[in-house]
């Protein structure tokens, strides 16, 4: 009664073949990640030391550490966040909670999507024109960070809007029915239940910002500047550009130095991503409905 027919056998074979094929694809997907990390750890690991992290490059960048670049990256990311998070979160709240659905807001949404698709080198040139020259900030942390901020705004806006929209509409309706204004509803119900998601988006933005090279190279990042920046109008070194320079512009750099810089950079990004995953887990644990 339950004997398998020829068709059953064929179905089962097909099913096994596809499962194997898709599994293989998945394996191929993670292979590059594993190879990259292994090479970086093996070749760059020996370079890592307190001295490497906390001293300036020396001997025409063929020796010494990465401290100014590390500090510079922190400056660039921090100032970029200060600029992009308030603007991004505020506009996402406006778009998700206040804006009527009409041709104008649809146009704005389209613009945001397109902004996300603009190549980083184009952002770089925009930054030169808008911040370095027109606004008169010169090549500086401020100009470079604002360029990064413009580039990452779509990420913040989209992440914020999605976490706002994850809060059920019924909660808002219940508040409005009680005579709460839109702002009271946002402040007391919507934001407390989406803040973790917004933070996740912000952290992802940090990890992306810290690796960007093109947007900062003409707007404020210096090839070699073995001093720490004193303010936002100074130029600074940055890890990403430092890696580019060591690999392509300076002769006779010991291999382990280049890999060391790459390892620190990817370590920063991975640490940020881990933090972001941690937030997601925390968010799920605290879910209130």
């Amino acid at each position, binding site marked *: 009664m339950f004997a398998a027919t020829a068709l059953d056998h064929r179905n089962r074979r097909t099913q096994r073949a596809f499962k194997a094929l898709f599994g293989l694809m998945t394996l191929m997907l993670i292979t590059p990640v594993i190879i990259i990390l292994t090479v970086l750890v093996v070749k760059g690991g020996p370079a890592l030391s307190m001295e490497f992290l906390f001293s300036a490059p020396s001997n025409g960048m063929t020796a010494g550490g990465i401290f100014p670049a590390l500090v510079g990256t922190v400056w660039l990311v921090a100032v970029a966040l200060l600029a992009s998070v308030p603007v991004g979160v505020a506009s996402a709240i406006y778009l998700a909670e206040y804006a009527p659905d009409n041709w104008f807001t649809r146009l704005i949404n389209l613009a945001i999507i397109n902004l996300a698709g603009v190549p980083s080198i184009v952002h770089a040139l925009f930054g030169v024109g808008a911040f370095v020259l027109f606004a008169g900030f010169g090549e500086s942390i401020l100009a470079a960070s604002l360029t990064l901020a413009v580039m990452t705004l779509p990420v913040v806006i989209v992440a914020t809007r999605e976490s706002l929209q994850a809060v059920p509409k019924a909660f808002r309706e*219940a508040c409005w029915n*009680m*005579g709460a204004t839109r702002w*009271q509803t946002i402040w*007391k119900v919507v934001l407390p239940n989406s803040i973790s998601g917004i933070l996740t988006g912000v952290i992802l933005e940090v990890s992306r910002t810290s690796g960007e090279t093109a947007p900062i190279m003409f707007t404020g990042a210096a090839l070699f500047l073995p001093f720490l920046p004193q303010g936002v109008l100074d130029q600074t070194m940055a890890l990403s550009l430092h890696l580019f320079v060591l690999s392509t512009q300076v002769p006779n750099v010991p291999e382990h130095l280049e890999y060391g810089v790459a390892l620190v950079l990817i370590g920063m990004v991975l640490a940020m991503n881990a933090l972001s995953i941690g937030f997601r887990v925390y968010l799920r644990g605290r879910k209130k409905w």
Partner: protein
Amino acid sequence: MVDAEVKLSVRGLRISYGDHVALDGVDLDVRANEILGIIGPAGSGKTSFLRALNRMDELDTAMTVEGDILFDGRNVRDVRNVYALRRRIGVVFPLPVGLPMTIYDNVAFAPRIRGIRKRAQLDEIVERCLRRAALWEEVKDRLKALGSLLSGGQQQRLTIARALSQDPDLLLLDEFSIAVDPVTTMRIEDVLRGLKDELTIILVTNLVQQARRLADRTAFFLNGELVEVGVTEALFTGPVVDQRTRDYVEGRFG
């Protein structure tokens, strides 16, 4: 009954969503301290009617409301402070909506947004409203627990307590018993009977017998039309005014 004060007076109400007309030509008076039942099959415009009363249509760009709604003699369209209007009208939805905050904060929400900050005063309001919604005994020891994690029936009573915390004149209930077990439904019905002395209730229900148990008068909506409104018992046993009403309440269609 004829001389009873009119709480809500609706004239020539028409509600549409784009080209689709949800409700048209509705003239209806709701008397103070009565329970008015509204029955009718799905899609007959009952929920749209409730949404028009506290101007929730303004939050839905597709919804258009025409005609006059007089609340205590004032046209609700002319009320400048829509938030004050909504505070005087409590609403209970078909599916209970416990806000994702503590039980206490759920009930203290409305008092807080109208500016009450004193702890003792809030405590008093929370206890009174939870008692009136027949929920106090079950939750008095865990007011700090999440309101959204209560059972369906408890959440629905929490929603009623929250509506009462607005200190409303008018309570709108939209098929409140859909997600509630029969025993809890009976308890809530008792609560509603007790509330009648203090406020006016409009009870939209898909259960004809619930209207019969609770409502002083009942209105029958069908396909966007107010077919008939009258003393509830007359709809069931009185002389037939409109055959469609009698068919509906006797379960011959719908």
